[in-house]
């Protein structure tokens, strides 16, 4: 154990190793936070998409990107008729007239990305009648029509064809501009109002409106084309990537080591067989085989892990370890162990493997990011686990939606940054360890 502690002391002398350790600690912390803050089931549920996200804008950049912009992008404005509305009521011959005014100020140079009105109506027999009016800062009144809303209804002002035809632009542009005739309308900044006039036909009927002017920035990580908050996948991608990388690296390194040691110890036919299997295995292209398994069987991450480990059993490492173990096989301490009657298994596990283990630790550490990237690669190919939110899947979505072409750079850059941090963390540590455990490479 002392040897390991000494190695750790030694590591502290390398700034790159400390940086690597800090990065890994950060990723571990992030994983712990992800798992605690968003329980597994909830994360899967959220990532499936759908109604959870209806109040989020599509393809919004992270909010902090505004810090670097001269022209700030608008955030989302959300007005609830209960909390933010000014309501007036008067009664009139069994009818109840209600007017809800939703005021908001818009001081940005870019148009919002969408405008929706979500309605929740409670009534027993007769639907209330709703008419909507839009008031611009320059005092124009735009009639948005009358509705008999269903119990739950979404009125999409951006997708209203009739409105778009009337304004000359889709709702979220036409309603927010003073120059609708122009081909390139500009935002009319100032105080807007949405006025909902409701005619209730029953004493108990209720209408609740949730008015959302979708912005172009959202949260820490932004959103994707399905309005999902990328933060969910960025956070949950961390434990999944680390687990996959660690499990695959551990599974392949240890088994390969045991196999190589057994080959060296028993020699003869067993050794020859192991060598031949390794040569066959080197020919098998891992990624295409994974692609085949993913297409023909299942895309589950755990199946992929199993295949990776199975194909890693006889990896090229066997050859490398063999070269290292051959001198150990003939070392006097192995002979001594044999002389006192130690069995093959004892010699393999207690004498030979511990001897080469320190040399393998750096290789093991640098192997982890390889598998993290392998998982991302599969996801980028569209063979990611169908349920799990991972970094690779964000990249795959971004690729499919031509994120770079549409200038949604954040969509590619944030998951890429996470992958890079993971890769760098383990690589920095591994390279420093390589110098410590393999003294031949020590540079001083």
């Amino acid at each position, binding site marked *: 154990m002392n040897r390991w502690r000494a190695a750790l002391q030694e590591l502290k002398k390398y700034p790159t190793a400390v940086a690597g350790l800090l990065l890994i600690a950060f990723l571990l912390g992030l994983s712990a936070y992800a798992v605690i803050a968003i329980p597994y089931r909830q994360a899967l549920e959220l990532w499936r998409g759908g109604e959870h996200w209806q109040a989020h804008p599509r393809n919004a950049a992270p909010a902090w990107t505004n810090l670097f912009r001269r022209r700030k992008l608008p955030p989302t404005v959300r007005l609830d008729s209960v909390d933010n509305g000014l309501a007036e009521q008067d009664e009139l011959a069994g009818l109840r007239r209600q007017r809800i005014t939703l005021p908001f100020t818009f001081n940005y140079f870019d148009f919002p990305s969408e405008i929706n009105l979500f309605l929740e109506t409670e009534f027993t027999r007769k639907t209330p009648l709703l008419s909507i009016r839009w008031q611009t800062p320059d005092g124009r009144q735009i009639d948005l029509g009358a509705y008999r809303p269903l119990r739950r209804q979404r009125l999409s002002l951006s997708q209203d064809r009739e409105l778009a035809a009337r304004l000359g632009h889709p709702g979220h542009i036409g309603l927010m501009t003073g120059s609708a005739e122009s081909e390139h309308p500009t935002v009319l900044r100032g105080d807007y109002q949405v006025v909902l006039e409701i005619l209730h036909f029953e004493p108990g009927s209720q209408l609740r409106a949730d008015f959302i002017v979708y912005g172009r920035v959202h949260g820490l990580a932004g959103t994707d084309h399905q309005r999902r908050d990328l933060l969910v996948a960025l956070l949950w991608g961390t434990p999944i990537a680390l687990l996959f990388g660690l499990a695959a690296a551990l599974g392949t390194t240890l088994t390969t080591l045991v196999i190589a040691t057994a080959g060296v110890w028993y020699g003869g036919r067993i050794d020859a067989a192991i060598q031949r299997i390794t040569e066959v295995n*080197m020919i098998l292209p*891992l990624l295409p*085989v994974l692609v085949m398994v993913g297409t*023909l069987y299942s895309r589950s991450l755990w199946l992929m892990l199993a295949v990776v480990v199975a194909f890693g059993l006889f990896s090229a490492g066997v050859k490398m370890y063999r070269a290292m173990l051959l001198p150990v096989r003939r070392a006097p301490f192995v002979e001594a162990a044999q002389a006192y009657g130690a069995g093959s298994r004892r010699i393999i596990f207690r004498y030979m493997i511990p001897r080469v283990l320190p040399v393998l630790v750096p290789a093991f550490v640098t192997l982890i990011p390889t598998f993290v*990237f392998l998982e991302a690669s599969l996801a980028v190919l569209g063979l990611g686990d169908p349920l799990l939110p991972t970094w690779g899947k964000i990249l795959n979505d971004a690729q499919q939606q031509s994120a770079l072409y549409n200038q949604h750079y954040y969509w590619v850059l944030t998951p890429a940054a996470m992958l*890079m941090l993971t890769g760098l963390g383990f690589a920095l540590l591994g390279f420093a360890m390589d110098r410590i455990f393999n003294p031949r*490479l020590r540079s001083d």
Partner: protein
Amino acid sequence: MNDIPPSASSAAARHNLRRLAIYTFVRLAGLLITVAVGVYITIFIAHGGGQLDQLRQAQIQAEVSERIAGMEEFRDYTPAERNQLIRDEVQREIERLRLDQPFVYRSLDYLSRAMTLNLGRAEQMFSDAGSRRVYHIIGERLPATLLLFGTANLLVFFIALFAALALSRRYGGKLDRTIIGLAPLSAAPGWFYGIFLILLFAFVIPWFPAGGMVAAPPPEGRLAYALSVVRHMALPVAAMLVSSIFISIYSWRTFFLIYSSEDYVEMARAKGLSSGDIERRYILRPTLPPIITSFALMLIGLWGGAIILEQVFNWPGLGTMLFAAIGHLDTPVIIGGVVIYAYLLAATLFVLDILYAVLDPRVKLQN
């Protein structure tokens, strides 16, 4: 070597050539067997879900129906008669191909087909020329892949070799430390840097095209065409260079450092040989075999990453084909792709093995 008499030298050359020929033949045979075993494993995996059998039967059905529909003498048959005829013919074909026999026999049939690249017909995909045969689809894509990866890997090999040699001379210097400090960049595969390069040099500063192999429409004239291809290759090649060159320089520099502290190098220095001679004959020569080995291992890894790199750059090679095949769930093409990759890996290993034998005179045949 110069003081050996000419006759002895030619005899030695002939001996060397013979040794190399035998070595080549044995390695080739060994690799073919290896590929066969690898392809057999692939078939075994693909067969696991019973997919392969269904595929073959569906293909036979399609072929038979097509053939019978095209024959003059059956034109007057009623639909019922014709269907009966098709059923009989399919049955005969299944028996002829031994599809009704146990998997062991059938798998050998599949194996011989796959090994001879008789890969069947694609379910959905076409080659650009309009053929449905997997062989043609692959044949159209292979040159693009070989061009891109051949170029990139040769560049990596030679740049890394000379950079490593140069750095081992300036061991401990600022440049040496910088390059070595960049080695962890190799933790990420080429496609990953590809995304950044596309972002930077195709969208933010539009110097290079974001993807594809030639401009559309392809330019007239050979030179213009070649230039267009080179422009399209720049970013993917750069991505592969960034991801694999620093680690190669790092590890090969280590080899050079180890070998340059050997006693015989000290001896050569003491004799007063020029540093160029020492580098070429005393350091480079013995270091090349391990460098070739490490390069081979790296290449094997790169072939896998090729699929995604091509997909990211929309390069019309095997990788994009495999990706499209996943999209269409076109199993024959996927299996064909795996087989081709196995062949490519084997070919890579074979070329490097021969190089190894040429470079390392100690390589002997173990019976």
